[in-house]
């Protein structure tokens, strides 16, 4: 027990320079910090030290960046403060006029994300060749980046075919990760095809393929545009350019 704690404590340095890439390890460390007064003080000193390292690396930003940032600022709404009640009020305003959507805050989505992460590990375990492994790892890293994004939100919804689909969405990445649990196998010769159902256009977005333990393999969907909804239909193996059956799931994304 003591050695475990000492082990965690030794991570302050790595944490301060964002060098812990294992989500679970980082979560354990953060939990430890909440109960460790010395850690908080030590981390603060280290963060300030890192800031000095950043200042030592300073170089002039490209001049056009300033204009672009200031122009973006003038059309970007600021986040509501974290004071009690504000977050909910804001969420309510954002959702006004749109179908209600139960995006859960970061802490809650970690639970949903945990199942996605388990499935990612499986993807990597299943592949055979090194080329496949590289691709799987690349995909895993992209998916992990979405899951780890500070603005990531998760939502789950049952499908009409049974089971539940879970979506983790990050606005800053302009991407989402889809997986499902307990979705019955598609009928023989058929697949579950994903769609972005946009007001301008409907685009195919990949397939939900069975993984292990009743989960599907996670799918990364990019290129979201405002007003997109996520849809799932049953289609012939290989997929179709347009949905041909009634969706078993339509999920507004609040994008």
């Amino acid at each position, binding site marked *: 027990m003591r050695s475990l704690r000492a082990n965690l404590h030794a991570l302050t*340095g790595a944490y301060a320079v964002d*060098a812990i890439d294992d989500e679970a390890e980082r979560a354990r460390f953060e939990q430890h910090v909440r109960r460790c007064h010395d850690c908080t003080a*030590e981390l603060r000193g280290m963060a*300030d030290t*890192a800031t000095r*390292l950043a200042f030592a690396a300073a170089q002039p930003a490209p001049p056009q960046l300033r204009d672009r940032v200031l122009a973006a*600022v003038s059309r970007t709404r600021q986040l509501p403060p974290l004071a009690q009640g504000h977050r909910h009020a804001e969420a309510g305003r954002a959702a006004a006029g749109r179908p209600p959507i139960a995006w859960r805050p970061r802490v809650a989505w970690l639970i949903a994300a945990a199942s996605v992460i388990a499935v990612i590990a499986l993807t990597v375990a299943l592949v055979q060749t090194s080329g496949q492994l590289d691709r799987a790892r690349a995909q895993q890293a992209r998916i992990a980046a979405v899951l780890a994004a500070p603005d990531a939100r998760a939502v789950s919804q049952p499908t009409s075919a049974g089971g539940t689909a879970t979506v983790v969405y990050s606005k800053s990445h302009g991407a989402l990760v889809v997986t499902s649990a307990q979705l019955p196998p598609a009928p023989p010769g058929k697949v579950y095809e994903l769609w972005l159902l946009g007001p301008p256009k409907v685009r195919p977005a990949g397939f939900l393929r069975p993984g292990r333990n009743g989960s599907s393999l996670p799918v990364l969907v990019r290129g979201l545009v405002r007003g997109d909804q996520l849809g799932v239909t049953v289609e012939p193996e290989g997929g179709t350019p347009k949905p041909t059956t009634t969706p078993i799931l339509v999920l507004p994304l609040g994008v």
Partner: protein
Amino acid sequence: MRPASSGSGLTEGRDRDLDGLLALVARGDETAFASVYDQLSGPVYGLIRRVVRDPAQSEEVAQEVMLEVWRAATRFDSAKGSAATWVLTIAHRRAVDRVRSAAAAAEREKRTSVLLSAGDEVAEAVEASLERERVRRCLDGLTDLQRESITLAYYGGHSYREVAGLLGLTLGTIKTRIRDGLIRLRDCMGVT
């Protein structure tokens, strides 16, 4: 050559100014934001360049970071740390996120070899500033292993696992070197 104390004096003055400016930014003051931008865009962009390397991608990440500073200024809590540290923590995280996404995987291989062959690139002053001098002196005061571990992790954006692999050492050793090195840097720089 220069009085040793002026570095931290400047730092403290800068921190007070920035904390005040960020409070104005939180209330939607775009002029205050422009001042924050002018004071921090250099370190933000420079740090991101060190980690990401590619100029176009770095510019993109820097834009995201500065916009995030604007959006989230309402949630900055000066009781928890300085404004500069808050902004540069966001910048480092975003830069690391960018290089850990696999699109950059191949690029990282190259970057690692560049970083290792360049050795103590931190010492190369791009601008001669007292801060840079002081940081360089403090880095020089670390053991080679501490300096390499911190450089690879912070400027290289590598996880401590990757640093262990690159240097051929155990995870435990790298964890300890990064921590001990940062503590030594902190004491050397007079961070309180």
